[in-house]
């Protein structure tokens, strides 16, 4: 058990000027289970792509440093070479053929064959499949997992958990597989199923297969892994045996940063706790990758509420669902009044507005001028900026539109040549400000702002947050900010709701300890 199966030395990777991994060092011994954790964008998936030899890496200039498998330096240029060396990967998204039987999926492209007469004429392509042998092999692989799954069943008829196991079975069916990478395998599973999966992983490791286990659920890491590797912003923060650490410490490493140095929110606002402006009851949103499941949330009038959570946990889905951009169900009450879901015009008319996380896709018409972008919703919903032409046409009032835009150019310090410039030519930060100007022009009572600082530079981030804070104070507008950066939320929010697995895990005051918030994000909040 002492042999180093995989060794990574001084591994660095950058995309253009953007360094995503720097000086990563760790190794895996035979039969060891390593947990890999980190926030979104910490570099987990890039690291896995490098190990598995995905072609994106080569295409973007390869990596620096060394990867050794069994003491031999390797540099895979495609996943097939990695498979050849005994590395298997189970991706977060299933890659099974739905209409095929489990056994067919497991042995796909490695089928046992029988000699066929036609082979002599048409070559290997027409060899007959040896169905019995294939079923046998599949069953053996499933057995290895210590499970009972009918290998003759078609994938579409299986529960999600079984599909996950079939994926793993496919990887270990390969004789050579020595290292298995599991990317968020428990994300789609229930608690019970996760437990079975972790048992399975442990069994596999006893059989000498090493495993890299990526998950955001830290309790699973503690439960299953021998060692945990923590990444943050592309750096390896820690590599430590799980027996020597605990969830709290790991969270701290993951979220890290110097916690004390941050300004803490000093609230001088008076918020009436009873005055609920928005209430969500059993709210579900079917947004791919950001599902919201049976969520309940009350938002007080005049506050800034932060929505925190890991990627894929549903925090982004909430605003998109309320605003009718993705299919939703459940009860939405705004100012005590029921809002019909799935009708985008409805919440807008009632006085809500949404600054989308997808700035370029949803937030702006890139080819239009700044002025028009700002005016669009007001024209459509509030019928502003229109003047009448002989009482026949009501057409846009360019002068008013330009005046309004110039107003905001000054107020929000949007850097541009004029309000007639196309928004496509602006920087990310300035585009975001245009989105905010658009929202402010609508003068909403409640504003959703999703990932306001994503993809904009540090200076602009501060500006955008200041603008939001000031707007909240001056106009008494309720703001709900969704952000992946907890630090930001702590700076400007009154309360922070942590969203995990599609539900609100906890609502904390912004003054709460960042570790506390972090723990709720990784699903171990209630432990203490």
């Amino acid at each position, binding site marked *: 058990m002492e042999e180093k199966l995989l060794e990574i030395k001084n591994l660095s990777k950058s995309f253009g000027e953007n360094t995503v991994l720097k000086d990563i060092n760790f190794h895996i011994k035979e039969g060891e289970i390593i947990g890999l954790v980190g926030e979104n964008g910490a570099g987990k998936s890039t690291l896995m792509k490098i190990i598995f030899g995905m072609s994106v890496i080569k295409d973007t200039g390869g990596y620096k440093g060394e990867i050794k498998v069994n003491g031999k330096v390797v540099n895979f240029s495609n996943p097939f070479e990695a498979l050849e060396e005994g590395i298997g990967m189970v991706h977060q998204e299933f890659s099974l053929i739905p209409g095929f039987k489990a056994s067919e999926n497991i042995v796909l492209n490695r089928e046992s064959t029988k000699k066929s007469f036609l082979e002599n004429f048409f070559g290997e392509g027409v060899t007959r499949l040896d169905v019995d042998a294939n079923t046998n092999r599949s069953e053996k692989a499933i057995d290895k997992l210590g499970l009972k799954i009918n290998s003759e069943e078609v994938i579409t008829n299986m529960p999600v958990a079984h599909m996950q196991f079939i994926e793993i079975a496919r990887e270990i069916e390969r004789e050579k597989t020595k290292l298995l990478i599991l990317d968020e395998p428990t994300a789609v599973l229930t608690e019970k199923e996760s437990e079975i999966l972790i048992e399975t992983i442990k069994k596999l490791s006893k059989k000498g297969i090493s495993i890299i286990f990526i998950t955001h659920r830290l309790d699973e890491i503690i439960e299953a892994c021998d060692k945990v590797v923590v990444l943050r912003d592309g750096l390896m923060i820690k590599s430590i045996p799980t027996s020597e650490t605990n969830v709290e410490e790991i969270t701290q490493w993951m979220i890290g940063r110097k916690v004390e140095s941050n300004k803490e929110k000093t609230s001088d606002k008076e918020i009436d706790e009873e005055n609920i402006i928005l209430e969500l009851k059993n709210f579900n949103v079917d947004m791919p990758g950001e599902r919201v499941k049976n969520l309940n949330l009350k938002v007080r009038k005049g506050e800034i509420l932060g929505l925190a959570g890991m990627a894929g946990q549903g925090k982004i889905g909430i605003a998109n669902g309320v*605003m*009718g*951009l993705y299919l939703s169900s459940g009860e939405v009450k705004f100012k005590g009044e029921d809002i019909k879901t799935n009708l*985008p*015009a*409805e919440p*807008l*008319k009632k006085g809500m507005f*949404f600054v*989308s996380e*997808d700035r370029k*896709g*949803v*937030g*702006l*018409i*890139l*080819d*239009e001028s700044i002025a028009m972008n700002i005016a*669009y*919703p007001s*024209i*459509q*919903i509030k*019928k502003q900026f*229109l003047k009448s*032409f002989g009482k026949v*046409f*009501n*057409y*846009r009032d360019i002068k008013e539109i330009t005046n309004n835009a110039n107003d905001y150019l000054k107020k929000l310090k949007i850097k541009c040549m004029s309000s007639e410039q196309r928004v496509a030519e602006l920087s990310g930060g300035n585009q975001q400000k245009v989105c905010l100007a658009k929202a402010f022009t609508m003068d909403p009572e409640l504003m959703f702002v999703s990932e306001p600082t994503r993809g904009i530079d540090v200076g602009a981030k501060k500006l955008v947050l200041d603008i939001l804070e000031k707007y909240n104070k001056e106009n008494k507008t309720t703001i709900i900010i969704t952000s992946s950066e907890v630090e930001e939320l702590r700076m400007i929010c009154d309360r922070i709701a942590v969203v995990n697995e599609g539900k609100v895990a906890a609502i904390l005051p912004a003054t709460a300890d960042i570790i506390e918030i972090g723990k709720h994000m990784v699903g171990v909040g209630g432990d203490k």
Partner: protein
Amino acid sequence: MNVKAHINKLGWPRIIIGLFLASMYISCPFLGLDLKAALNDTFIRFGMNAVLVLSLVPMIQAGTGLNFGMPLGVEAGLLGATISIELGAKGFNGFLVAILFAIIFGIIFGWIYGLILNKAKGGEMMIATYVGFSSVALMCIMWLILPFKSQDMIWAYGGSGLRTTISVENYWYRILEKVLNLKNINFPIGEVIIFIIFAFIISMFFKTKSGLAMKAVGTNEKFAKATGINIEKERIKSVVLSSMLAAIGIVIYQQSFGFVQLYLAPFYMAFPAIAAILIGGASVKKATILNVVIGTFLFQGILTMTPSVVNGIIKTDMSETIRIIVSNGMILYALTRKGEL
């Protein structure tokens, strides 16, 4: 620098085609052709086709694609024309009645057509082509069984059903010139004026709330949705508008041409119009009035000039063959670069 910017704005394809067209006008005197008549021909054809080309704009702007289903709108216009003749309305009134019925049928047909296109999001152009084709087939039956009685339209000697070609000589032939009392001038002033009116209405429309909503749907559907715009409705609106304009366009075409052509005539109506607007610099997603004007002029100019010039050079009459080669060649050229031109 400034010249370069202007060239880029206009686009090389248009400059090359424009130069080619100019060279043909210049060569006219040398080949013994009448330049004035040639120019006049070009303008008449421009006047006949401009509104049909303009009818493509709403659908392009709303992201519903190039209107390959234009024959459907044309059929609505034909119904308008035949009903007007059936009612015996003559002169400018007859023309107005034809337009009125064309608009009514344009709205009805366009609405149904819009519903179909909403079911075929992403593949509009293919579906549109076949909607256009099948509408022609359906109307072929209709022309035979609809109860038209006017002696000027049904088959002679007491037959039933409409003729393939109906003359409007006694009704509203070149009425747009007659109404302006410009009998001796051959230049199509009436058509140009009516085109300018419609072009103005369309460009104003795209500055109204409704027009802006339609444009938003065409340029960024997600943005439109987030702005509370009803996407399906805007798309149907654009299709109705396009079909209506196509119906009006064909009536204008007929009053200039002198004949109402039924049965298979509308079959290929869409292709020359689409080729014209593409040559004018429009793309599948964006079209302006200027694209319409430049495109119609260049396309119709080449179409009128090439046969006569080539005939002049090789001294044999094969104008029809050349016209077919040139028009289909230009359509092919325009469609292959519908994204970039």
